């Protein structure tokens, strides 16, 4: 493998990462669309999508390993390859979460909706935007953009907490809503994870460009706090119920 060949393969692999990113972004959009419209056929389409995503994942990984093994790249090339190996893991997980959401759409089937979905689509738009921008940052080696994306996670977390609270309240009032409600909580948590994965991607971009690893993570959604709040609501309900 000549030097020119090395750069060609490196470049193509980066493009494959962006291809995988575009598939993943579309998968999130379609998954939430399918959920909102209870569109089982669309949900099935996403599950098939995942094969493409997985194929790209394997291709990128093997290209990266070949580049590492055969060329012993240095400095920025090495960091790019290392970053790609990490980024594809995040993208693959994001794709899996899109599939999880599609699976939930199938599980819910034609059950009547609990309530019109408003905040979940909002969360999805934000999460998708974060994925897209993190990959823009990667494509353009734009460390400033990579730094600007993670703060958006705060809004995703806020929506997550809001959805969690609302659904718990609905389930407390109406136990027949528990199956639908808990499924929707899962959807929200997947979207929250997707946003976190895009933060990981940004960290890799910053490392690639600046050469220094940085932790860009925002405060993690406190599951314990959220669950404690739910407990409190539940107990409050029981108390009023027994009076």
């Amino acid at each position, binding site marked *: 493998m000549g030097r020119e060949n090395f750069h060609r393969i490196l*470049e193509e692999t980066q*493009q494959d990462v*962006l*291809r995988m*990113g*575009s*598939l993943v*972004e*579309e998968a999130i*959009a379609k998954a939430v669309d399918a959920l909102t419209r209870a569109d089982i056929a669309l949900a099935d389409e996403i599950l098939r999508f995942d094969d*493409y995503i997985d194929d790209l994942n394997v291709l990128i990984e093997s290209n990266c390993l070949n580049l590492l093994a055969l060329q012993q790249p240095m400095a920025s090339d090495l960091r790019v390859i290392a970053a790609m190996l990490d980024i594809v893991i995040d993208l693959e997980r994001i794709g899996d979460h899109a599939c999880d959401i599609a699976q939930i759409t199938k599980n819910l089937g034609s059950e009547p909706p609990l309530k*019109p979905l408003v905040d979940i689509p909002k969360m999805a738009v934000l999460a*998708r935007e974060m994925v*897209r921008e993190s*990959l823009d940052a990667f*494509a*353009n080696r734009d460390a400033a953009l990579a730094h600007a994306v993670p703060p958006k996670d705060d809004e995703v977390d806020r929506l997550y907490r809001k959805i969690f609270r609302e659904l718990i309240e609905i389930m407390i009032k109406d136990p027949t809503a528990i199956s639908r409600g808990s499924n929707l909580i899962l959807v929200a948590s997947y979207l929250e994870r997707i946003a976190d994965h895009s933060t990981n991607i940004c960290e890799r971009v910053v490392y690639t460009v600046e050469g220094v690893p940085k932790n860009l993570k925002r405060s993690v959604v406190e599951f314990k706090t959220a669950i404690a709040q739910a407990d409190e609501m539940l107990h409050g309900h029981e108390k009023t119920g027994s009076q």
Partner: protein
Amino acid sequence: MSAAGVPNDIDAALQQRFLALAHAVPVGIIVVNPRGRVTAFNSAAEEIFAVPAARAVGRALIETVRNFELDRRVAAALSQGIESAAEVTHVGTERRLRVKVMPLGRSDGRRDAVAIVEDLTALRDLTELRRDFVSNVSHELRTPLTAVKIMVETLQAGADAQAQATFLDSIAHETDRMIALVEELLDLARMESGRLQLAMGPVELGDLCRAAVAAQAARAKGLGIELSAGVPPAPLSMVGDRDKLFQVMLNLIDNALRNTPSGGRVTASVRAVGDGLEIAVDDTGCGIPVDALPHLFERFFVVDRSRARNISGTGLGLAIVKHIVELHGGSVMALSELNAGSQFLCRFPR
């Protein structure tokens, strides 16, 4: 290869003309060279993908236009000369696109790929709007028709005198509802084709306001909404079509009643403002999201479909208001705060 792009076997002048032409065309045009680099990216493509040509040209397509399907087709055209066409969604800008990708042979034996991208988003939105409208109107017509049919069948089967009277009243009421809806549709069609003739004359807005409130009073009471008229002591006269202006008031009050929960308040008022007159209808209803405000007066627009189903409207009332007000040389406006209420304003020159 020039910076601007297009194959280098075309002379410079021709290249300039090609680019000028490409930029003037309303469909997106993207040219990709045998090495997979974008060499031309016209204005429509910039708009569709929200990517400036300066960023796209010279790079691999996927680096700026993150669309797997388009990229795959371009790759197939470049490597295997495959021509293809498909409808694809571009999630980045939420557009529905029809793409056609063709290989374009060069004199050096290699080939470029040309992607022609047509934006179907507006068409799709329009189709959805029409479908919603048709289903809405059909629903609005079918509901009273079904009721009428059942009552007629019962009458045919024989019913006692009291039931007969009740059913006949209901049938009359339901047919009135259907006639009103059909009238609304015809009115709007007339207004939009410019065939509506206004019967101009002196109109006293205060009287009109009180009459409109009186006409909706029973309904408001049934809904548990406090409906009142705010009319200044001095008469407010203008020249206009009395019946049509009455319809404006009725439609605005009707809209407010639909969107206000029980226990809320709706106030219709008229007043002099500067050198003009104003009709205002305020409610304490659920309010209108900011992004919906610009579309309120569009035909068939319904803020929230899930909400609208419960409070069935045809989506025509406000469009009719806008047409009538504008035929009078006036303007309409909506102000709103989510979960606090809305205000609809019509301003007329005196």
